[in-house]
């Protein structure tokens, strides 16, 4: 038996209702780790031959919920949700915090593969060896809180009857979708708890397309054995002590950045990125603390950082609203990006995104895009049904509802910024793309590149395997290696970005998995291997959108405009610099001048079979 993982995936076919165990060999883990890496491998094996034909929202797509070998052991429980993305038409390793991955492992599985489509709404209920596909008609259409509440109650009450003599049963862990996912909104998230989301990638829509409302799991067993129990306990103690010292991250989380990323680094989206600077002190952590935070430390399994805070509005017209922080990304995207500079406005819009099952970043991106089109008179009151002014929280909330339910213009915006821009360009006979701040179908995270003061460098999103994903940036690191290689380790081991400390993670690999992972193995074999396949599938794309690296390996047009305000006024990135850096990135990644993994790279990485798929890309792009 391998240490740290079981080597077993639960495979459920919703069309045939067939349930089986699929074994994963230890050698696969050594080549792809788990989480994002294993997802890439499974999707390549199963769909690679016909990737371009697979509709991400059709019956042939596969939904994967994957843990990594460190899930449950390394502090801060997360799980990776993946499949063919309905946003990028490639693969996004989208991770979400919570206990789901731990419960799954305690139930005896490293992950779940969901195939097919159910005839009517269902949810999957896993209790150790028992797996049931259950009717979900009663929760279909329900928002996040009601879904979670109903399932928790009904599954606990069943468990109490079944295990009457055992004592009081705990709740299961649940991943679910809101109305947005049900309506196949491409910016729908897969949610956990009340407020956590696997947002990037749009896998809420994939669940919806499979008529799968939720997956609930209770594992009553232990986590798999570890290779070196004593060393593991020491390593756990050390990393927890070390993380406990990160004072500001613990006390403010990312919730102080809504002010500072604007005021300090001039890299925060303001009014759809027309600006990246603001000095609105009332939007600082001090206001969030005193007005809305009702819990200082809130965290997921084993986390000593607990950067989440709970926010609730106890006054005024938004009374009763509950969400986490909001963290920096949503302070920005459902705040400054919409011209909202009041903590309660951002809390309200964040909670609305939670309730509807929307990705807060993606919906904030498309709302900002819409408001700019309104500002420019491209979209009008007649198109929307109401006025849409910067800072109008209630108007934006209304639009969120319309998106989640695909009502009116919401049906267009539900396609995400990129596809909405294509549609509106056609509709209005103008070019809306200059206002779309996205890369390869994915709205850019809330960290700009123009000021040069943030961690995001000029190519952060350009060669990014996950488009605009700010957690997976394609910077060059201090040793001139692709920084995304490290992120691949984070998403494949499935640990939290904020708790990631490389030396500790390596130590955990040894103590938990008995795997003496080396920097060399990671940077020269595992990460580039995963990246080469992920890149190939991204460039295969289809069937509705395709990417041409010569055009689409680029920043959004807006990032080439000079910053209009703040201490970094006038700053921008130069296209020729980006082009130069891009070529360096390609080279160190082992890709050719078009950004296609080279034949020799594939051979060195032991994945020559990918060559044939790259030929298909070349054919489409008409390059040799």
């Amino acid at each position: 038996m391998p240490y740290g993982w079981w080597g077993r995936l639960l495979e459920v076919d919703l069309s045939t209702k067939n349930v089986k165990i699929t074994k994963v060999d230890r050698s696969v883990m050594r080549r792809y780790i788990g989480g994002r890496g294993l997802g890439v491998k499974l999707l390549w094996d199963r769909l690679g031959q016909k990737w371009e034909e697979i509709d991400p929202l059709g019956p042939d797509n596969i939904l994967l919920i994957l843990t990594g070998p460190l899930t449950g052991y390394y502090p801060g429980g997360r799980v990776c949700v993946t499949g063919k993305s309905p946003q990028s038409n490639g693969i996004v390793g989208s991770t979400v915090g919570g206990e789901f991955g731990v419960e799954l492992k305690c139930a005896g599985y490293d992950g779940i593969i969901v195939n097919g489509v159910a005839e009517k709404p269902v949810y999957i209920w896993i209790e150790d060896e028992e797996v049931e596909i259950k009717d979900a008609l009663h929760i279909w259409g329900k928002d996040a809180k009601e879904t979670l509440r109903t399932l928790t109650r009904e599954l606990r009450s069943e468990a109490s009857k079944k295990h009457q003599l055992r004592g009081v049963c705990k709740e299961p862990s649940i991943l679910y979708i809101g109305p947005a996912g049900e309506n196949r909104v491409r910016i729908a998230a897969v949610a956990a708890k009340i407020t956590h989301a696997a947002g990037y990638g749009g896998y809420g829509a994939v669940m919806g397309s499979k008529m799968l409302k939720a997956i609930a799991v209770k594992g009553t067993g232990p986590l798999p054995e570890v290779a070196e129990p004593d060393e593991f306990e020491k390593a756990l103690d050390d990393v927890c002590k070390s993380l406990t010292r990160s004072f500001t991250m613990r006390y403010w989380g990312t919730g102080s950045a809504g002010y500072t990323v604007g005021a300090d680094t001039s890299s925060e989206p303001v009014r759809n990125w027309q600006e990246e600077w603001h000095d609105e002190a009332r939007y600082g952590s001090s206001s969030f603390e005193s007005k809305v935070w009702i819990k200082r430390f809130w965290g997921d399994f084993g986390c000593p950082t607990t950067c989440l805070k709970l926010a609730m509005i106890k006054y005024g017209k938004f009374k009763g609203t509950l969400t986490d922080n909001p963290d920096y990304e949503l302070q920005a995207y459902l705040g400054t990006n919409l011209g909202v500079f009041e903590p309660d406005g951002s809390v309200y819009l964040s909670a609305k995104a939670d309730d509807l099952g929307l990705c807060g970043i993606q919906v904030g991106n498309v709302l900002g895009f819409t408001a700019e089109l309104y500002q420019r008179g491209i979209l009008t009151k007649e198109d929307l049904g109401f006025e849409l002014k910067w800072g109008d929280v209630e108007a934006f909330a209304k639009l969120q509802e319309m998106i989640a339910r695909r009502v009116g213009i919401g049906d267009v915006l539900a396609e995400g910024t990129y596809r909405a821009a294509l549609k509106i360009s056609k509709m209005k006979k103008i070019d809306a793309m200059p206002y779309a701040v996205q890369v390869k179908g994915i709205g850019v995270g809330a960290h700009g590149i123009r000021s040069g003061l943030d961690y995001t460098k000029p190519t952060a999103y350009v060669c990014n395997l996950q488009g605009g994903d700010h957690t997976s940036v394609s910077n060059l690191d201090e040793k001139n290696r692709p920084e995304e290689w490290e992120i691949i380790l984070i998403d494949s081991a499935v640990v939290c970005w904020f708790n990631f400390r490389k030396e500790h993670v390596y130590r955990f690999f040894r103590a938990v998995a008995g795997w003496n992972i080396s920097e060399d193995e990671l940077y020269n074999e595992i990460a580039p291997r995963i990246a080469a396949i992920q890149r190939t599938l991204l460039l295969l794309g289809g069937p509705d959108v395709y990417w041409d690296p010569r055009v689409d390996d680029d920043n959004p047009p807006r990032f080439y405009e000079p910053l209009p305000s703040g201490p970094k006024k006038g700053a921008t990135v130069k296209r020729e610099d980006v082009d130069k850096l891009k070529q360096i990135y390609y080279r160190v990644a082992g890709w050719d001048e078009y950004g296609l993994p080279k034949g020799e790279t594939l051979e060195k990485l032991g994945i020559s079979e990918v060559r044939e798929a790259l030929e298909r890309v070349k054919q489409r792009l008409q390059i040799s």
Partner: protein
Amino acid sequence: MGEEKAKIWIFRDYERCSGCRRCEIICSLRHEGRIWPEASRIRVFMLIPGLEIPHLCTQCPDYPCVSACPFNALTVDDKTGAVLVDVDKCTGCGKCIDACPGKVPYIHPRMRYAVICDLCGGEPECVRVCTEAGYNALIKIPRFPTQAYKVYARRPEDVVRDLALKVYGEEWEGWV
């Protein structure tokens, strides 16, 4: 009094629980040698997210679980006041659970015996990690002769219902 002095109690402040479950992790590592939340002697309930409840024995002064055990499997540790389970005698019949006002004991998920907090012999590990993290949802305090501890033997449903009213407001009353 000397004996009483050595006894401790785990003070619990539910509102300060971060839901991190490091108490479950360390408890199951100490008692089971594995990370095993369902076999932990302290169990964190998340019946409403954000209002996590650590559920553990409070050592009622009259120990109703001990007197309810038909097999004399439960005894009180003279030194700490903790309830000790004799796993050879315990049959997992669940009478202790019935007798407990808070339904705290739990039958081990793989073995036929009850698991109950043993206070780690006087140095509870769950308290150590909670204190170290600065949450102080669990604090070790000296145990004085009082009935007060018994009122903490409550079902997680009842605690979270109160907490929801207090922290989230009355619209959350019917959640659980």
